[in-house]
């Protein structure tokens, strides 16, 4: 089977999962105790206004009708309107915030993977000596630290005490130079953007980095004990080549699985990171929506978070299939 065919299949499998997600979210939001319309229109509204709102939002219809209508609507990309933002379509609001969160996620994962893999390999290579212990302790602390606290500490040290980096906000690298304070050229924008990105990326990436380091180390150790690595040694292949080639590719399979699991943690972490650094992304959006009890917005953002997760896992699965030939060809042999 080709990789494209495989991706196609996996995409098809996403549909029922998303449908279930929509259903769960819908049921959840509609099981709010009390009258949602009253919350919508505010406590001072009179009976007529409540009734008008009820009709306006279609809340006079039975639950299953609304469910079917909602399904039909989101199939066309219509997630309703946000009350908190004065009737702006939810989709528009989400699309405005999505790039911010994606930028944050991509940069933090790049940072995490980029440091974790060499660190894990290094630890495995130096098994049980002091570098290994140091790496293991570091990663243990890493998986046990609340990410938002890391953010606070970073702000204290790098923004308040040393004034090296900005404590809040995020500038997109593709923003027009005019819209960014003190920037006259694309280069300025990029520099500003990078300086804003460093602290949030570390904050969000710490946990991922620690988790990936641990799995990289143990996975590498396991592979280094395999017969085919012994065979490579028996044929005179150097330890360096084994680490870089023979063992490395195999060791990444469990690592990919863990990265897949970390996506869900990272999406939650994005909410915290955006709160700590006052970044206007999806995370801040959902918090705002919840605080304002803006239900259409809550549902929309929740579903979009699920979409991000599912697509992230898809990318991981495809990578897995690319590395492991037993998967992409159907895997019936083993």
């Amino acid at each position, binding site marked *: 089977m080709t990789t494209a065919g495989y991706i196609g299949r996996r995409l098809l499998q996403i549909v*029922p*999962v*998303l449908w*279930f*997600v929509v*259903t*769960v*979210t819908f049921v*959840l*939001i509609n*099981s*709010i*105790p009390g009258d949602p319309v009253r919350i919508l229109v505010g406590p001072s509204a009179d009976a007529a206004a409540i009734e008008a709102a009820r009709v306006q939002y279609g809340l006079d219809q039975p639950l299953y009708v609304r469910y079917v209508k909602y399904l039909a609507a989101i199939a066309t990309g219509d997630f309703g309107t946000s009350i908190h933002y004065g009737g702006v379509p939810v989709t528009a609001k989400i699309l405005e915030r999505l790039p911010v969160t994606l930028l944050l996620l991509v940069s933090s994962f790049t940072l995490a993977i980029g440091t974790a893999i060499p660190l894990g390999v290094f630890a495995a290579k130096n*098994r*049980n000596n002091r570098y290994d212990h140091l790496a293991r302790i570091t990663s*243990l*602390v890493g*998986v*046990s*630290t*609340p*990410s*938002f*606290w890391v953010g*606070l*500490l970073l*702000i*204290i040290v790098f923004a*308040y005490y040393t004034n090296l980096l900005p404590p809040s906000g995020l500038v997109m690298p593709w923003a027009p130079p005019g819209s960014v304070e003190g920037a006259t050229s694309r280069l300025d924008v990029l520099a500003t953007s990078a300086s804003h990105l460093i602290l949030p990326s570390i904050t969000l990436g710490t946990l991922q980095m620690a988790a990936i380091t641990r799995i990289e180390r*143990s996975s590498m*150790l*396991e592979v280094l*004990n395999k017969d085919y690595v*012994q065979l490579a040694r028996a044929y005179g292949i150097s330890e360096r080549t084994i680490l870089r080639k023979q063992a490395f590719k195999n060791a990444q399979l469990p690592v990919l699985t863990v990265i897949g699991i970390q*996506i*869900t*943690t990272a*999406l*939650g*972490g994005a*909410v*915290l990171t955006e*709160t*700590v650094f006052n970044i206007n992304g999806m995370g801040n959006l*959902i*918090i705002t*929506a*919840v*605080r304002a*009890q803006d239900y259409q917005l*809550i549902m929309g*953002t*929740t579903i979009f*978070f*699920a979409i991000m*997760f*599912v697509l992230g896992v898809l990318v991981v699965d495809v990578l897995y299939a690319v590395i492991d030939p037993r998967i992409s060809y159907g895997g019936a042999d083993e």
Partner: protein
Amino acid sequence: MSDSTVPAGESTRVGSSTEERTAVSRSAQAFRQLKRNSASRAGLYVIGIVTLVALLTTIDADIFDYQFAATFWYHPENDPSGGEILLPPIGIENEFGAGNWAHPLGTDHRGRDILVRLVYGTRIAVQVGLLATGIGMTLGTVIGAVSGYYGGWVDDVLQRFVESLYAIPFLILVIAIMSAFGRELGIAIVGVSITTIPVFTRLIRSQVLSVREMEYVEAAKAAGVRDRHIIFRHIIPNSLAPVLVQSTLQVGVNILIVASLSFLGFGVQPPTPSWGQMLAQSRQYMIVNPWFSIWPGIAILVTVIGFNMLGDGLRDAIDPRSND
């Protein structure tokens, strides 16, 4: 390489040739292994201390002296102008004054003693961590065991359900649940338990599936042992070891989640002291008294490390391959 010295299938025989052997169960062996591991011992100590502190706080005023108790809540007597707010720890000075022994770790923005609030925060953390994990583990284990044992459409439906729960990032899911049902601590616990379910369902289901195929289960079946007996005597006991490991690790994870929720303003509402909420409150005062932000983080870190070290130790004890 050491494998080659000991034949496959005979590896557990090491050291057993001496005739003087008493009955030693696998779990006893695992426990001995655990005790030998210094990291997991340290983990046990940390958890022990934290739990003890949490228990002591429930006895309240009798054990903790009045001064602590008095500063537990916001008191009008602690007039902000009195200079008792945002004090640094002992040995450090800031614009509000110098640290003193009355408040060894300093005070918060309302003049409350940080140490006392940390101590009381322990109760919430441990309570929520254990409770949420316990509920999630029980439900997840039951769903997973049912799913794995019966298979067929029951398995399909339950797996689809669990998979979609898993597809919503867990923090988002808890937030969505709390936006629907309220932002109290109880809802937070329920929400965190729900996000914990898929973790255990997946784990126990795969365990049951593999244990179900073990030859000793087949042997029991071939001997004419009843299904019920097979499930309770063979399948469940043999599937539980990784659940034990995971639940220990999960307590740590759940403590982190609840702290995150409190930090975001969900869950524990002021003035009840909780570590996450203290961190949230400290954000405004980071410049003047960074210690306010540092202490609760350390408390969370130490507690979670304790559970992680114990969990890692348990895993190594049960499956020695997972480490070295």
